[in-house]
């Protein structure tokens, strides 16, 4: 079910605040499962926040970002109704995407 992103975007004065929750296990590759087998590393490596087609923030993540990652950012401008999008790719080639409009 990986891939979903829940986003809230709202005006804060002349800033727009974006809060995103992503559905991802963020496995470090250092854990073992019940049977003692090691669980392969599986974590988001790149994530970006876009306002319309402008990339507001791009990040590189390691496996130390918590499972079901949370990301909060703020940027200047943005009117209610504008599209805000978050996208990610992980080390196994998986992708995630979510979109909302600024309230």
């Amino acid at each position, binding site marked *: 079910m990986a*891939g*979903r992103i*829940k*986003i*809230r975007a709202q005006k804060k004065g002349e*800033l727009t605040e974006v*809060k995103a*929750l992503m559905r991802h296990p963020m496995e*470090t590759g*250092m854990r073992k499962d019940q049977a003692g087998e090691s669980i392969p590393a599986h974590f988001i*490596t*790149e994530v*970006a926040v*876009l306002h319309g*087609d*402008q*990339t*507001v*923030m*791009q*990040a*590189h*993540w*390691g*496996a*130390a*970002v*918590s*499972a079901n*990652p*949370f*990301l*909060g*950012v*703020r*940027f*200047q*401008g943005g009117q209610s109704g504008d599209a805000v*999008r978050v*996208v990610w*790719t992980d080390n196994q080639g998986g*992708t995630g*995407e979510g*979109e*909302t409009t600024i309230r």
Partner: protein
Amino acid sequence: MKDTAKGRVSRRRLLNWAAALGALMTLPARAWATVSRPETAFDATALDQALMALGQTPTRHEGVIFTTPDIAENGAVVPIRVEVDQTVLPNVSKVSVLVEMNPNPLAAVFDIAPGTEVYIETRVKVAQTGNLYAVVESDGQLFMASRETKVTLGGCGG
């Protein structure tokens, strides 16, 4: 959090996925260059190694406002916030978060586009009690703040 109607949930939309992914890969060629992933920094297994790989040993700066809990209910999810007082520390283009006691201290690197506030909230794993570092880059210089977070054992069988 309910941006989709609560009723029947549609499958994840893939409509403009290509465009979004495209945006991720080829950032608009403004002053802000596409920054490749700092692999050596992420692979570093000691704090000073990671800092070296990021550039140089950062100097403390009170303009870096780093908020972390003094004591974490659980080391798997530690909420942190990094902000910058732009009046004393302008032109910040990058924020890195490091967790000293983790096997790989570098947790995340955030590239801040011009016009974007230096305001990052996320949650990181902290292996054991120790120092967390927020390192910011401004005009090629590295500045930092650090705070200790206690990670406690919980549960009866802990």
